[in-house]
């Protein structure tokens, strides 16, 4: 039975990893068709010369950086608040809302944000664009940040901060000098995670993006809809490699918690 189990597991691992591996291999194919003709970097060269892709990538990076920075600050503060005050109406409300946001289907979150924006636009003279995308990204990544930061906080000794207060530090100083330094690896891990989620999102982004805010996933989606091309293979491979490195870094920072 042991052998059968190992073989089965190997097959499942192949199922999990082979599609991406094959895609990566064919991104180095010199032919435009799915027949191997030889190693070539032509698709990567084409990729870096494509102004459309470059603009989308830049948009994605701006959105991901802004959204992650905002979400990290708000999320860390929120996790700290939840750690300090475990019960009550406000923590209860926040916890159940974040939990719900984690399981809300992306499409529902996307259309509800779209409906909300359109309603707000009746009163304000703004339109869909980078800002609406950033706000949406802050919202959907905050739950991940709180979960990771809270997990890290729960490993800390609350009496350390009390000791700091006892030694005459103000609450702000106690948080900044005692708790925050210990929390940093968790925050960094969570921020990396939020960044990868933000840069990868298609469903919500496509609904709330404006004409000036096309992101990389939107471009890839459009190209995939048209049947795909070796160029998409190359972009995809790059994204997987970059995200993979970030995830491994995030895992390291979380210390296998």
């Amino acid at each position, binding site marked *: 039975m042991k052998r059968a189990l190992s073989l089965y597991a190997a097959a*499942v691992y192949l199922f999990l990893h082979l599609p991406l591996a094959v895609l990566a291999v*064919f991104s180095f194919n010199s032919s435009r068709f799915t027949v191997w003709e030889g190693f070539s970097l032509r698709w990567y060269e084409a990729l870096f010369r494509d102004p459309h892709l470059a603009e989308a990538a830049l948009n994605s990076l701006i959105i991901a950086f802004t959204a992650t920075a905002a979400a990290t600050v708000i999320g860390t503060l929120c996790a700290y608040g939840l750690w300090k005050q475990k019960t009550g109406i406000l923590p209860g409300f926040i916890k159940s809302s974040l939990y719900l*946001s984690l399981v809300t289907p992306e499409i*529902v979150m996307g259309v509800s944000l779209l409906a909300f924006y359109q309603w707000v636009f009746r009163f304000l003279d703004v339109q869909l664009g980078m800002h609406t995308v950033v706000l949406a990204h802050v919202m959907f990544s905050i739950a991940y940040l709180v*979960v990771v930061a809270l997990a890290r906080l729960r490993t800390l000794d609350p009496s350390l901060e009390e000791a700091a207060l006892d030694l005459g530090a103000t609450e702000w100083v106690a948080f900044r000098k005692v708790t925050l330094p210990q929390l940093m690896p968790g925050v960094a891990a969570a921020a990396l995670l939020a960044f990868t989620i933000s840069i990868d999102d298609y469903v919500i982004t496509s609904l709330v993006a404006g004409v000036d805010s096309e992101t990389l996933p939107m471009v890839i989606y459009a190209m995939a809809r048209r049947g795909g091309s070796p160029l998409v293979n190359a972009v995809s491979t790059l*994204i997987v490699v970059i*995200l993979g490195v970030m995830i491994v870094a995030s895992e390291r920072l979380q210390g296998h918690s």
Partner: protein
Amino acid sequence: MKLPAARLCLLPAAVLILLLFIAPLLIVCAYSLLSRGAYGGVGLPRSAESYTRLFDPLYASIFARSFAVAAISTALCLLLGFPLALFISRSGRRKNLYLALVILPFWTSFLVRTYAWMFLLRDTGLLNTLLLSLGIIREPLPLLYNYGAVILGLVYGYLPFMVLPIYATIERIDRSVIEAAADLGAKPWTTLTQIVVPLSAPGIAAGSVLVFIPCLGAYLTPDLLGGGKTILVGNLIQNQFTTARDWPFGSAVSLLLMALVMVLLLLIARRNQEGLL
């Protein structure tokens, strides 16, 4: 003395959640009770028509199909995931590595992973090209743009959700209980079915719900791998808000989907008291 500071820390998140999560959901609630506007959007009069339309056989069948697709995907995830979780729990020092190999693809771009299957399955894709060049087939097989491809993509996308909770419960089973079963004469297969499977039931339940929920509301996978030929709830919602421009009906469908998700969650919330938050 501690409490005001804690509240202050919670405030930004609370405002964010109220504005960008709760308010949008409330707007969707309100829209679902209005009529379709002349140029898209919504308008008066108030109407429950969107909800009565949910009972239209056309839409009821979309819900039924989504349920069936999600159920089949969940069952397949269980079929692949349970043995994998068992394997990882029995692999000693390599556990962390094998676990990482399950988690890693999950965090690398969902879109790219879905596209990878398109690359494999489409008419000019790798599988068809291979089979054609080997002379096994003469015409490309219609591998893409059907329910099979959608289910394949969903299983591929959400398998980690099944593996992780099952692995966690198997890990918690006392090693000596397994030894006791063998000691009392149970062969490995009997130990597996009589002891390991029943004791990992909470993990199986949690994993099944965690896979079922995103499969039920899936949009990207049926859109790309189903190619418009497979309409599920997610596509229906997207379609109502974009092409069809019937926001009230789209809102009603969204709320029904949310309601289903919440019912499912309550079902496991009773079993697993301790959540993530």
